[in-house]
């Protein structure tokens, strides 16, 4: 009987303890001197294209998803937003995921920006299906597939 009464009181005691702890540690009030939130999240990838060449603005000037073995392969990443420092990466893979190349670059864009990544293979690309996955600050932000054939 005593055990039952104690069990019935437990939720009440827990609620009192929670209320006391809340009263003891009120949430901090917003400070007018708090640092502004980071602007990193403002940058986002809006487009990824692949092709055989880029122009001076780092945009694809010869768009294709089908390459010859001796061609250089370009991926152009369009971002929008501003950041004091963001990391863009291109993760190139072959067929079932075999890593071809991984490149990273740090950028501090303010507004629309274009970043190109390129790969070449002096001995020629093996035929097959490839993929480039673009990552922004470590998170996947877009993928493009392409193939190499003779």
């Amino acid at each position, binding site marked *: 009987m005593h055990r039952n009464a104690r069990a019935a009181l437990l939720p009440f005691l827990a609620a009192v303890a929670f209320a006391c702890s809340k009263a003891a540690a009120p949430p901090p009030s917003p400070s007018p001197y708090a640092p502004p939130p980071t602007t990193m999240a403002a940058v986002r990838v809006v487009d990824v294209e692949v092709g*055989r*060449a*880029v*122009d*001076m*603005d*780092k945009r694809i*000037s*010869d768009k294709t998803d089908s390459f010859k073995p001796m061609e*250089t392969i*370009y991926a152009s990443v369009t*971002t929008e937003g501003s950041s*004091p*420092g963001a990391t*863009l990466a*291109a993760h*190139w893979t*072959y067929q*079932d995921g*075999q*890593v*071809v*190349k991984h*490149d990273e*670059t*740090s*950028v*501090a*864009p*303010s507004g629309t*920006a*274009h*970043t*190109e*990544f*390129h*790969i*070449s*293979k*002096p*001995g020629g690309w*093996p035929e097959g299906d490839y993929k480039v996955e673009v990552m922004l600050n470590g998170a996947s932000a877009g993928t493009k597939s392409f193939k190499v054939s003779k």
Partner: protein
Amino acid sequence: MGIFGKDDKDKNQPQTNFSDVQSGKPRPDFSDVQGGSSSTAPRPGQGGPAATAAPMNTYVVVKGDSLSKIAQRAYGDGNKWRKIYEANKDVIKDPDLIYPGQSLRIPE
């Protein structure tokens, strides 16, 4: 033919690693792949454009282009057309004649 016959046949097969044997498919070697990147955005802490891992960009000529027009867009100075010409002497015989579809290297 070797003692067991099969040995000689295997010598002619491409070299494979352990993972090749597991998957049953030869895996291509990508160790010689070259790559790089460049951006219109500056690097963090810098005011100028991001440094590029590639010394040159590639530009494909379109109808109406001339070396001075390309130089104007690339460097903001059409008089620097010779820089592009010098970098592409193997494909440009006459600097007044470039053709749509030609792929030109644009020095940084």
